[in-house]
């Protein structure tokens, strides 16, 4: 009858000590967890109780156990790697619980035994499998970090090595214990312990006394290593075991594409975040959830162009600062704050501190996080998209920008011009608002105010500032007007009643100016009708009107022009001959605010397929699309640090051997137009909005 003597060769002293160590582990785990919790609760309270708890829990469980955010396109290796480690450990842990159940409860209290026979055989087969997967995953991890030379693992810490080392040690000693017992006791059921079996055979000739002695030593070391692991969890990156799912739970039902609003802004005394306690307590959990995987860096435009902002570093800096305040070491071998700065984060040179002179009680902005890091951000969300535990880098950055703008009045000089222009002219340029509809007059497009019967209109075309005032942008608006006419869509524009959506103001942290601009637009839109569909040719306007205006009372049905054109084509209202690919076609670039923010990946591609007969897909596409560099009000700031983001993306487009890049956003158009001139390829590489491509295809019809 296959079974094993539980506790074979383990002395009473060993067991006695084991239970004492349980007390130590429980104490330190509870201490570390509570210290973190106490730190989180120093953040601002939420505006109401946590809602939709069931939905959050389901989401958190799915993300945790099914690894939904780890097994992503492009991350199969590391997704499987972690899956093996995770499930290996979980099953091994359940295995331990089963043995505990048998030895400490079922046998003494019920006089029964289930840990034998068929149960035992199945148990051993399964546990050997998962123990092996555990080791395989760990070895994959070792290779990933130390062998693959990925940019985001350029600087590893001893914390990383300790974690991997401890886990490997535990896994290996577990199998060794099994093998030693099998060899020493000549267990007849040895083959079912199939991973240790070959080792047991190899040890067959060894003196049993030696085997028994080795087994005892291994047992002690396995127990001590286990104690070390549990004690290490609260002060190391392993805390993510608890904080990761906690963060996913807290973030689960937050609206994806909208920044939070400031209610009653005129009555507030304090704006944005200047110190840790200004973050909401939910946001503080973000910093503890990070385990420094670095996926946020892979598609980050600033990390990949050598700028100060590296999303992981931002989180790690603030997390280390927070843990220092909490009385935790942030891992004895992990990132620490000392006089020279925050060590152990994204360092370019071997020991170059990321900041200089961080006193223990430091200013969050300035000492822990630099202003350059905050202003570098393009708000593209590549970091948030990839983060396995849903850390929200962008809202954290914007909250700090809000403090700099609204309270300290301390921000790049170029933004003064932007804010002044937005205030005076309701557009980011110095064009007077009265000239906003001049392009429309030339194109025969009417303003809503001039339309006799507004109820006969099908859509309102929201033009946006760039397409209204900028010469290059106006070509896109004119092209779209031509498409509307060809499809016989009755539409009008707000024209002089349209003002900037407020997107650049909000991303730059000027929430007050955003609300002023938004409220003016909402008043105008509600005046005409909040039921009409709004078509926007700018993803920033699209996102703001659709996802953020509801915060201020503006609820509209908004779609992007690529979606509308796709509708027109598939319904047959827009008659376009099936496109034939000319030359090498265009490479399609996913605008951040259309793609990642609103998950509109397919409509523009369908349009390109229908009208142009196809397009080239860039390696960094869809949710991994690489930003053009204009978001986050960066289009209105100079790019002085690192290399140019737009050139990085353009080179990728050029490398596909396409004849040009097709975009669906006026900011992207501008960045790439500037880029092709700077890279001297304007003769052979075109930049076109898909509206222009479609309009040109129509031109060949009529």
């Amino acid at each position, binding site marked *: 009858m296959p079974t094993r003597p539980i506790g074979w060769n383990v002395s009473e002293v060993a067991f006695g000590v084991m239970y004492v160590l349980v007390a130590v582990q429980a104490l330190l785990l509870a201490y570390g967890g509570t210290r973190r919790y106490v730190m989180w609760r*120093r953040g601002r309270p939420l*505006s109401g109780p946590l809602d939709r708890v069931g939905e959050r829990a389901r989401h958190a469980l799915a993300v945790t156990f099914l690894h939904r955010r780890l097994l992503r396109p492009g991350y199969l290796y590391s997704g499987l790697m972690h899956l093996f480690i995770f499930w290996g450990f979980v099953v091994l842990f359940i295995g331990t619980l089963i043995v505990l159940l048998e030895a400490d409860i079922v046998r003494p209290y019920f006089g029964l035994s289930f840990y034998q026979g068929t149960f035992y055989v199945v148990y051993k087969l399964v546990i050997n499998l998962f123990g092996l997967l555990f080791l395989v995953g760990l070895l994959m991890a070792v290779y990933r970090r130390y062998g693959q030379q990925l940019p985001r693992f350029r600087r590893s810490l001893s914390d990383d090595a300790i974690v991997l080392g401890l886990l490997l040690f535990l896994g290996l000693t577990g199998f060794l214990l099994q093998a030693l017992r099998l060899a020493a006791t000549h267990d007849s059921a040895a083959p079912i312990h199939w991973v240790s079996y070959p080792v047991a055979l190899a040890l067959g000739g060894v003196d049993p006394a030696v085997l028994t002695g080795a087994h005892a030593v291994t047992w002690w070391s396995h127990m001590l290593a286990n104690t070390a692991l549990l004690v290490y969890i609260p002060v190391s990156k392993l805390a993510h075991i608890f904080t990761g799912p906690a963060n996913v739970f807290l973030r689960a039902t937050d609206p994806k594409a909208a920044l939070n609003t400031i209610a009653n802004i005129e009555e507030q005394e304090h704006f944005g975040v200047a110190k840790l306690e200004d973050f909401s307590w939910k946001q503080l959990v973000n910093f503890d959830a990070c385990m420094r995987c670095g996926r946020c860096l892979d598609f980050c435009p600033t990390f990949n162009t050598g700028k100060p902002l590296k999303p992981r570093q931002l989180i790690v800096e603030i997390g280390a600062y927070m843990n220092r305040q909490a009385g935790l070491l942030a891992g004895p071998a992990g990132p620490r704050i000392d006089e020279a700065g925050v060590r152990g984060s994204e360092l370019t040179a071997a020991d170059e501190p990321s900041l200089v002179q961080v006193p*223990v009680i430091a200013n969050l902005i300035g000492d822990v996080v630099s202003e350059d890091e905050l202003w570098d951000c393009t708000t593209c969300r590549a970091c948030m998209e990839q983060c396995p535990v849903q850390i929200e880098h962008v809202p954290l950055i914007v909250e700090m920008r809000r403090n700099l703008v609204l309270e300290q009045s301390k921000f790049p000089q170029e933004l003064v011009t932007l804010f002044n222009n937005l205030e005076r002219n309701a557009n980011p340029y110095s064009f007077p608002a009265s000239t906003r509809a001049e392009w429309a007059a030339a194109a025969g497009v009417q303003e809503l105010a001039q339309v006799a019967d507004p109820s006969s209109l099908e859509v309102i075309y929201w033009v946006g500032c760039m397409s209204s005032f900028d010469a290059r942008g106006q070509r896109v608006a004119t092209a779209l007007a031509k498409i509307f006419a060809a499809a016989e869509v009755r539409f009008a524009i707000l024209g002089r009643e349209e003002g900037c959506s407020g997107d650049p103001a909000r991303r730059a942290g000027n929430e007050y100016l955003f609300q002023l601009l938004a409220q003016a637009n909402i008043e105008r839109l509600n005046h005409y009708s909040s039921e009409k569909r709004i078509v926007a040719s700018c993803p920033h306007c699209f996102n703001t009107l659709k996802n953020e205006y509801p915060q201020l009372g503006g609820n509209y049905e908004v779609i992007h022009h690529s979606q509308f054109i796709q509708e027109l084509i598939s319904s047959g209202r827009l008659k376009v001959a099936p496109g034939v690919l000319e030359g090498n076609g265009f490479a399609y670039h996913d605008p951040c605010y259309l793609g990642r923010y609103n998950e509109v990946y397919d409509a523009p591609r369908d349009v390109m397929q229908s009208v142009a007969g196809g397009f080239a897909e860039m390696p960094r596409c869809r949710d991994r699309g690489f930003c053009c560099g204009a978001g986050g009000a960066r289009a209105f700031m100079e790019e002085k640090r690192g290399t140019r983001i737009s050139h990085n993306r353009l080179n990728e487009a050029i490398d596909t051997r396409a004849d040009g890049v097709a975009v669906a956003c006026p900011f992207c158009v501008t960045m790439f137009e500037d880029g092709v001139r700077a890279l001297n390829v304007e003769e052979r590489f075109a930049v076109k909005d898909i509206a222009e491509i479609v309009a040109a295809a129509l031109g060949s019809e009529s």
Partner: protein
Amino acid sequence: MRAANSPGRAPELVGATIAAVLLEAVLAALLTLVGIGLTSAGVFAHVPQAVAPGALLTLVGGGWLGNALARRDVRLFPGTREGSKD
């Protein structure tokens, strides 16, 4: 309903010493010791029924003690007192 951005609770405590911990910590410690006593009895005096409840008490007692120390802002790790350099 508080507005979303009203300030949070101010940090309440200055670092306490272990000596300042009260009744709660003593109780938790006692509980832990009882648990260890039970598991030891189970192991050394061969009373297997004592192990499970003993382990449970040890776990709960140890956790409670850790939690109590944490809530009172006791700094267990060297060099992590407020104001000290790390």
